[in-house]
């Protein structure tokens, strides 16, 4: 168990190192970070001085080393636009993003798991049919369109829910549904296929043959075993949710990291972009590490691999 944990931790650190390199490299894509960071009307002398000040004339690896040391201390430089440390700006908005992603995940799990189970147990019934069609549509629907349609119906036409901002629970409803639909669709399909597979196993037939009632067979025997792939995908889906928050937050003016980073890109505020990408990626890596560790409790066979 300990060996597994150590190996998994080392893996995560390696991934984060790679992430930091890519984040660092974003600024160097055009070859000259000074041109990326400075406004287009900067004079040649400004550019020269800025390069000197930021150390852009140093060898590439020296610059990366400096960036990495800064990143470890949470120092990504100052925001060009807000004149605040970029990391603080992003960190301030992280709770809003996590709130949104968390709510979306909650909705997804609350809808998808029952829907998937019922679909599998009552295969080819009306419920199965409806949930399959909804899941298919959900997987094919672009997030931003769904968001706009929800605003059109619930905010513009019915005036039931607010279309932008954060604060009350009402503010959370539309963005969370928008962000969560794709994940709901994915988990529904996965739960259904997982349950179908498990329900055909010998031990289920045995339980039924012994005269066990249907509900305990489904809930105790089948779901426990079908849960394993669901737990894995929850970790992966969190990545989808964090990434998807970029679009959802833009539509609903949700004050999170995603919206901040889109604005930062428009404003050419790259320290903020770097901090945001780094922080979101780190969140994702850490959550997946936690999921993997939890996983070993669900499925002890993993530890042996």
């Amino acid at each position, binding site marked *: 168990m300990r060996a597994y944990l150590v190996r998994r931790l080392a893996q995560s650190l390696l991934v984060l190192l790679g992430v930091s390199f890519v984040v660092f490299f*974003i600024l160097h894509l055009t070859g000259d970070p000074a041109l990326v960071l400075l406004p287009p009307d900067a004079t040649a002398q400004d550019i020269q001085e800025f390069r000197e000040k930021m150390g852009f004339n140093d060898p590439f690896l020296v610059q990366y080393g400096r960036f990495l040391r800064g990143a470890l201390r949470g120092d990504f430089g100052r925001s060009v636009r807000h004149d605040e440390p970029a990391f603080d700006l992003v960190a301030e908005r992280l709770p809003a993003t996590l709130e949104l992603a968390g709510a979306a995940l909650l909705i997804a799990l609350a809808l998808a798991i029952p829907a998937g189970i019922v679909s599998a147990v009552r295969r080819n019934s009306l419920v199965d049919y409806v949930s399959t069609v909804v899941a298919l549509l959900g*997987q094919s629907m672009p997030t931003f369109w769904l968001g*706009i349609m929800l605003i059109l119906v619930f905010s513009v036409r019915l005036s039931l829910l607010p279309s932008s901002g954060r604060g009350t629970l009402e503010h959370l409803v539309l963005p969370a549904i928008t962000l969560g639909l794709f994940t709901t669709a994915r988990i529904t399909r996965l739960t259904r296929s997982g349950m179908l597979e498990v329900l055909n196993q010998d031990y289920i037939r045995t339980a039924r043959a012994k005269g066990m009632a249907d509900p305990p067979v489904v809930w105790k025997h089948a779901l426990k075993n079908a849960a394993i792939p669901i737990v894995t995908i929850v970790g992966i889906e969190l*990545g989808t949710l964090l990434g998807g928050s970029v679009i959802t937050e833009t539509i609903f003016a949700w004050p999170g990291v995603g919206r901040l980073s889109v604005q930062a890109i*428009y404003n050419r505020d790259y320290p903020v972009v770097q901090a945001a*990408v780094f922080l979101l990626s780190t969140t994702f890596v850490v959550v997946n590490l936690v999921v993997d560790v939890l996983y070993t409790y669900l499925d002890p066979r993993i530890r042996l691999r």
Partner: protein
Amino acid sequence: MTPPGTSAAARALELPARASSPARREWVVFLRRLARRRTALFGLCVVVAVLVLAVAAPWVTSWDPIEQDIPSRLQAPGSVHASGRVHLLGTDHLGRDLLARIVFGARPALLVGFAAVAISGLLGLVLGLVSGYFGGRVDDVFMRLADIQLAFPFILLAIAVIGVLGPSLPVIIVVIGVSSWVVYARVVRSEVLSIREREFVQAAHALGVRDVRILLRHVLPNALTPWLVVATLDMARVIVIESALSFLGLGVQPPTPTWGGMLADGRVYISTAWWLATFPGLAILLTVLGINLFGDGLRDTLDPRLTV
């Protein structure tokens, strides 16, 4: 099960060719199986229809998708223009026919879709083949690279890179293409891992056939089936990403019509002109749904145990 692969194996064994070659017959069997899945067939029809519309766009509609006509701006669907022609889906805030723009908007979506899938598919195929066949250190390096790639919120990375390099068709294609190889590599790799142990590969090895030749002649044809399924389903994802990027203003730039860009315009007029945001979104939904249905059918026909 695997038309290209088994046909190659069958050819090697020189099965007696009757009226049609074995390869041909494999394809016929495959097509018959696929045709029996009505949803897959429906998906294929939608995809073909969108393709035809995109290619034949100038002949499909008589309206110009770019030329502005301010006097007839924000006309509701079905309104009649002064010239007597009908704006079937209405007009946008610059008086342009919405249907024409949707039809022309299929072009960048499909172009980015095909080109990006070609890049990431090829990249993933090569990395997956090498990783699975040689294993060891190479495999470790590629799989860690895959982990790093997956750790990024994809859309955020894409907009950061496009923000630095500036939005243009080649940049968008390359960014999406280069960052989507992981699924392909993983699927191909796991397929190669099992093919590697099969007798015909072992036999080729024993005969002293070089690795490159084994990979290309014996392993690759058998790994192509799952690859094709992944490519189809990935195409749907790429089209959504392309429209997301153009929705954020980082896609193909106006006045070229893009579905995402039209949605962004429509969002501004959401309270006065519902059709502006509704129809381009339906176009995306229908296209993506068609590809997904076809991809699901392809998977169930070719390789039911594949989980993508």
